[in-house]
């Protein structure tokens, strides 16, 4: 299953680095998916996490994204339709023919 929250500590495969000293809110909202996916370079991850300590509004934005993902998961249909008759017939023919 994918991550819909902050990455595990130290995990940042395929990392992305920003040449800035601090992250603004406008930059943060563009980084949030990479943050969830663990794709930020250590330095940028630190800047993002420092920003979230200081910015309740961006924490709210993270909660928005998490709520959106959670809501999407509720749209999953639990049952697939019945396999098509012709495909089942072909499968049964294999069995009858000894596979």
């Amino acid at each position, binding site marked *: 299953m994918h991550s819909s929250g902050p990455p595990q500590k130290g995990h940042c495969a395929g990392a992305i680095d920003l040449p800035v000293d601090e992250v603004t809110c406008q930059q943060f909202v563009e980084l949030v998916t990479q943050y969830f996916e663990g794709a930020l370079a250590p330095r940028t991850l630190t800047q993002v996490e420092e920003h979230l300590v200081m910015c309740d509004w961006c924490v709210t934005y993270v909660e928005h994204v998490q709520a959106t993902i959670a809501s999407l998961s509720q749209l999953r249909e639990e049952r697939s339709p019945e396999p098509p008759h012709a495909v089942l017939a072909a499968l049964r*023919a294999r069995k009858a023919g000894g596979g």
Partner: protein
Amino acid sequence: MRPESTLAPAQVAVQDEQTVAALRAGDEWAFRDLYARTYPMMKRVARAYVASDAVAEEIVQETWMAVVTGIDRFEGRSALGTWIFSILTNQAKTHSARESRALPFSSVAVRDANEPAVDPDRFQKDEDAWPGHWATPPRPWQKPERRLLSLEARGHLKAALAQLPDRQRLIVGLRDIEGHSAAEVCDRLGLSRENQRVLLHRGRSRLRAALEEYLETADL
């Protein structure tokens, strides 16, 4: 059978071997298990190539027929899922060509359009006190008594999902609705991790904005 995204590569290979043997023997239980696990992703991928659910369903059925009748030709050089999806995308491309539709993952770079996650007007400008910080910040959605999305809000979300560009809707569907991993999605669709992430980011951003607009109106 366990979902492929929860297994290590060696475990996938073992599970594949068991599944292939069962299919060759005409094992209906094994087939139904594989079908149920794979159908949602197959339907979403097929639907990204064609104009209607009915044609997407046709593509999925044609693919399964090809899998069942051609399983003896599967040599195990790729994962079973990769093989199934290569058949699916070939079938989908054939149908797509008949409809003269642009393919969803053609060579056009994913980065060709600039699409900010949030309306830039919601942030302070260079001449303001805190450039780049919120001018119109997001408000909390969660009320303790409202944990689950209401039916009406869910309908609104579905409508917003239907309006996403095809590629964004497909990636959001596979990752956030069906719960597939990034690795699985990139493998099945032949996408780079970065391109997949860009599509996911844009799709999620649009849906978040649509939910925000709806929920703030509903709260009035």
